[in-house]
């Protein structure tokens, strides 16, 4: 029996159309829009001004406070303006606009292809380098990595968990990275282990990526303390709490963090970025993005500079098919529908999916038949039908008592509902109201 998490979960059609397509470098665009907030936490402060000349890898906005991240230029050229620009969720945010001139990298970045395994930095220096290099979680949430590498006093981490699950349908960027940059990822894992002072790391990969499992297992033999674990294919296995449960059978308490059970989870993409930052002195300014969809002529996995307009990326993949009805930033289960194709690629963007028109509209909402399928699909063992009806009726105190805030918005309930009910939409409404209520309570 393959390991997996025990409660709930669904199995959406995998549609990994681009699993066998190697990573291709996207040409540097003519201009980029780099938002100063691409991460969870405070937005960074711009440190360049209109007219400044920047090089690839240069800091253009510096992190503000502990939970924040530096933003680097992904191109060389001239800052044309600092202005508001819509991000992929449609909100307008401060961004640095750069007109590209050449491709002039900072001299400090080691561009040689050699793989460096020897770690010269101390644990503290590694954390500092991650902070300076603007490393954030590459799986989608974009949580600043140096925060997760800083173990508060009184807590102890004994195992590092590496997320190579990629449980979202369609997405293949982590898969490609594991196939093509396996050694760099493992070197990155070793760096993370040193930073956290642990001697054990476990990489979880779902069984639908047999090549990645085989490749990583073979490579891991030459690294000490790293093991690779095939997992049963089940969504949402890439969620931190579910992955920890699947791999080491520890249950993170409600409202707590993985560190409370002695684990820290990082994505394979993050491990790769950490490797580049620490060993190559290369800050985070490019990432692999899967561009896919059933109607796309040249779907693929692209190494893209942060700030590249989405439309450039889609053009390289064959252009927007005529029947496109929706464009998703991220996976189809948790990704966000974008409002505009001029928005830039950001650090947390793992994929872009072009959905044909007929698949992009929701079904008609029918009455709940109380089949309990949402209850059995919920990986947190909540009762989505109840949370929805409480939110519909503004009964937020009761929603709080029913632990609506434990919901991680994986969407398994809405996916599974035979009556096509918008369970998660209402649960989000309930969650945001409960969080607001709790905040007001704390103020009193």
């Amino acid at each position, binding site marked *: 029996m393959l390991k997996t998490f025990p*409660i709930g979960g*669904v199995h959406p*059609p995998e549609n990994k159309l681009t699993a066998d397509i190697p990573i291709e470098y996207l040409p540097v665009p003519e201009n980029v829009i780099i938002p100063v907030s691409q991460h969870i936490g405070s937005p960074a402060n711009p440190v360049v001004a209109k007219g400044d000349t920047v090089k690839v890898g240069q800091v253009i906005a510096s992190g503000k406070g502990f939970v924040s991240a530096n933003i680097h230029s992904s191109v060389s050229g001239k800052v044309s303006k600092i202005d508001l620009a819509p991000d992929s969720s*449609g909100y307008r945010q401060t961004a640095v606009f750069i007109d590209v001139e050449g491709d002039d990298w900072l001299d400090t970045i080691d561009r040689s292809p050699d793989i460096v395994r020897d770690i010269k930095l101390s644990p503290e220096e590694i954390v500092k380098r991650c902070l300076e290099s603007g490393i954030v979680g590459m799986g989608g949430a974009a949580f600043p990595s140096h925060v997760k590498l800083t173990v508060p006093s009184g807590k102890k981490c004994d195992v590092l968990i590496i997320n190579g699950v990629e449980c979202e*349908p369609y997405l293949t960027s982590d898969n490609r990275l594991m196939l093509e940059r396996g050694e760099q990822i493992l070197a990155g894992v070793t760096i993370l282990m040193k930073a956290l002072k642990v001697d054990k790391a476990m990489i979880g990969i779902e069984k639908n990526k047999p090549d990645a499992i085989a490749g990583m297992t073979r490579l891991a033999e030459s690294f000490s303390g790293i093991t690779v674990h095939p997992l049963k294919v089940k969504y949402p296995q890439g969620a931190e*709490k579910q992955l920890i449960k699947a791999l080491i*059978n*520890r*249950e*993170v*308490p*409600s*409202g*707590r963090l993985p560190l409370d059970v002695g684990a820290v989870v990082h994505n394979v993409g993050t491990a790769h970025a950490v490797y580049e930052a620490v060993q190559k002195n290369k800050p985070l300014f490019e990432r692999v993005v899967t561009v896919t969809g059933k109607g796309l002529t040249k779907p693929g996995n692209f190494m893209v500079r942060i700030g590249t307009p989405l439309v450039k990326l889609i053009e390289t993949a064959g252009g927007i098919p005529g029947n*496109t*009805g*929706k464009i*998703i930033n*991220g996976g*189809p*289960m*948790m*990704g*966000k*529908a*974008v*409002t505009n194709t001029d928005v830039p690629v950001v650090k947390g963007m793992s994929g872009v999916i072009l*959905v044909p*028109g007929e*698949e*992009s509209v*929701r079904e008609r909402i*029918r*009455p709940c*038949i*109380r*089949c*309990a*399928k949402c*209850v*059995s699909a919920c990986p*947190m*063992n*909540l*009762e989505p*039908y*109840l949370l929805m009806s409480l939110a519909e009726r503004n009964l937020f105190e009761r929603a709080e008592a*029913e*632990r609506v805030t*434990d919901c991680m*918005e994986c*969407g398994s309930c*809405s*996916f*599974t*509902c*035979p*009556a096509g009910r918008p369970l*998660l939409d209402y649960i*989000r409404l309930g969650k945001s109201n409960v969080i607001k209520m709790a905040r007001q309570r704390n103020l009193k």
Partner: protein
Amino acid sequence: MSNLLNVSQSPHVHGKESTQRLMLNVVIALIPAFITSVFYFGAGAVIVTATSVVSCLLFEYLIQRFVLRKPISINDGSALVTGILLAFNLPSNIPVLIIVIGSFVSIAVAKMTFGGIGNNPFNPALVGRVFMLISFPVQMTSWPVPKGFGTGYLDAVTGATPLAVIKEGLKNGEPISDLIARIPTPSQMFLGDMGGSMGEVAAIALLIGFAWLLIRKVITWHIPVSVIGSLALFTAILWLVNPEKNASPMFHILAGGVLLGAIFMATDYVTSPMVPKAMLIYGCGIGIITVIIRVYGAYPEGVSFAILIMNAFVPLMNSYIKPKRFGEEVKNG
């Protein structure tokens, strides 16, 4: 493309399950039982089922169209399932007019007055059936003897069900060992060669349907297994204490409507609990109440009453029996 993109919240994909497909799977699961009922009771089985299905669909349509003035949703399959299940709970020689009245009670009173699909507290087919049992006790308890297509419809030869033989016999002080000779053998009962409601007789057909429902993930095992398990346990205790006064658990499972009730009636989504733990309690309640009615009550059969009684507790169970949340009570190791 039109220049506008659709924007909605995640998830952006939906599973292939729908209300209609689930109901269709229930109908498919009921096909073996329908075939056996035609095999044993002939034309009557077809007439009763057709009447019940047509009148259930018609009443739902008329009420939605003219009373509620809401969109018509009879194609969701739920009234179809109610119609079939109501028919399966009736003797195959019941007059058409009584079926129409029963269908009216099922759909109009038990379902639509509460707001239609998803809102009814009691199983509509069973409300209809119990209404008919109380209003037309003679017609509802004259059971055709299974003679295949020779059974006829209104002119069918009738006889007592195995449960009635045992109940009557025990009341008259006869020991089980004498009564056994007057009821079908367990293998006959397993194949359905006995008097009874037309859809309940053939255990084998119902079990095939159960397997289908499990394979297609329409229902989980919790309710059927707890109903049958608790009934078997309770009757086993009685039987071991006094085998001359109590029938065996095997008899209790095969006779009457236990399997039809446990697999198809108690598992009705709307009127059963939402959480596995509550499903087990609900199922055990049905099993135990069935035995109490059969052994100590006035009626020879109690499955319908037991399910309706437990239906009444479902809202309470949904409010108070909660699943163990992930990360709620933590034991690590």
